[in-house]
């Protein structure tokens, strides 16, 4: 655990706390989904998860084009964030000719990254979206992030601490401002006073749901777990339609949280045809 005082306040970074908060934010996002609406102002609007609690990554999209990612291994954490218009070319001075479409595109956000954290960088970069950049007659795919931090033992660094321009720094600062093991929605700290008050008020009103999520997440930290019948009743008082329920089950299964007695649900086949955006001749 390490503390740093920054323009975003006193930030505390802890590897295990970040992994727990990532898992909790993922579960919270699903509970906040349409049509469940069990949580107002969830910390995440587009949740994605890969790996496990030892080695994994969490993608936290805002549903409007900006996002942040944390990737972790036993050695530590790499955090990266993106805001539309501020990728490595625009903000990290990456030349178009140097774009690889891989983790090296975003190294400029992580000065001094220890070699031990390369696997965490690879996990985090694997969740980053790509942007198309024209290089002559072709496009190249650039990994999109403009700011980052890394945490290794009692060391923490990255452009989050040095860059005077906020191109996603507030998104990353939230990982150093966890409260009660929870990643707060950015609006809880970085929005207008009335809105901050609204977010806090809804967290208070929905405290039983937050307690439920803490209980489930704490159980999961000890190993794969199932919901209890009471928890399902509280999460889904009105049974959702089959497809929506299946979607939630598949998402939670990825993090080792399942329904009572349910066998592993196979992933439905995904569309693997040509890019649907390509105009048909």
């Amino acid at each position, binding site marked *: 655990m390490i503390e740093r005082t920054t323009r975003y306040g006193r930030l505390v970074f802890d590897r295990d706390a970040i992994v727990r908060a990532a898992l909790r934010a993922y579960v919270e996002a699903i509970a*906040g989904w349409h049509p469940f609406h069990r949580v107002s102002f969830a910390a995440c609007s587009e949740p994605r998860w890969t790996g496990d609690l030892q080695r994994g990554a969490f993608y936290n999209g*805002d*549903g*409007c084009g900006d996002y942040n990612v944390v990737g972790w291994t036993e050695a530590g954490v790499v955090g990266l964030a993106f805001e539309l218009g501020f990728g490595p070319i625009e903000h990290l001075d990456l030349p178009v000719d140097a774009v690889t479409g891989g983790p090296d595109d975003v190294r400029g956000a992580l000065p001094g990254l220890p070699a031990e954290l390369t696997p965490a960088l690879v996990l985090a970069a694997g969740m980053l*979206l790509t*942007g198309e950049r024209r290089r002559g*007659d072709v496009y190249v795919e650039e990994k999109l992030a403009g700011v980052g931090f890394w945490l290794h033992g009692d060391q923490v660094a990255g452009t989050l601490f040095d860059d005077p*321009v906020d191109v996603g720094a507030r998104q990353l600062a939230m990982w150093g401002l966890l409260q009660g093991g929870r990643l707060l929605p950015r*609006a809880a700290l970085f929005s207008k006073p009335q809105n901050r008050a609204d977010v806090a008020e809804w967290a208070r009103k929905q405290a039983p749901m937050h307690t439920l999520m803490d209980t489930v997440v704490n159980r999961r930290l000890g190993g794969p777990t199932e919901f209890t019948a009471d928890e399902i009743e509280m999460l889904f008082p009105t049974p959702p339609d089959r497809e929506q329920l299946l979607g939630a089950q598949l998402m939670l299964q990825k993090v080792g949280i399942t329904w009572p007695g349910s066998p592993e649900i196979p992933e*439905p086949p995904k569309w693997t045809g040509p890019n649907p955006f390509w105009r048909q001749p």
Partner: protein
Amino acid sequence: MRYHTLLVGNPSFDVALRNKYIAAFGDACYMSEAGSFGCFYKKSQDACDDAVKIGEVSGNAPYDTGYMCQADGAGNYTLQIGADVANVTYINYQAAPRQTPFIEVNGMPMEVSGPYRNLTDPAGVGPGDPFLGNNSGVPDGDGGVLDQQKYVLQVNRKQNGGKIRSDLAGFTWTCTGADGGLTTCEELEFLEEPDSNPKSMFYADTVAQVHHVVPRKDPRCCPWGTNSYKNAAVISGKLNRHFSNNDPPTDEVKRLNGAQAYPP
């Protein structure tokens, strides 16, 4: 706060001169909402690099090159531009005015007023504010409340049989083809739910996002577009990243302003 260079002439009124500065210095230069034209930079070095070209770009005598910007200790810089040490231009670290949110359509500045224009804005919408996390004040039907992002998606679903339809379905742009070459992409009609289990390997592209038509931040990372519903459109993640934070294309603004308004 950004680094502001001192331009020569009166580009706020002289359109030809303004266009010369834009051609030379790109999106550092813009018209503010107050009607003044200026060039502002995130990095002092970029401001210094362009400041030395101002003489030539403006059509006046070129500035002398070979001098370095000098810091004044208060965040500002001076740059010597002639043999006399007193012949300098200034780069001032100061608040950058907001870029005009009006988009030029057929030579006329036009306000963005997209298909969610009939929704009632929450109090205090402002430049740079996000839709996510801002209380819409609209109940979610399950005892909670929707933020603006979720409210826009709900309104869209309600009008489209429970699915999310792109507000720019059919919009075309140049993109990467199968071989890395150029091809034409066309915006899909229906998009994936942002919080569903991905249905395809193209999820990051096909997901529905609530797009700020006038981008939330301008190219200098200053607040620009607001979180007013007039400035919202639902589009795919792929098209949203294509638009990035560039000036909205005229075609986009014309289509969205001409679209039927969603009922609340």
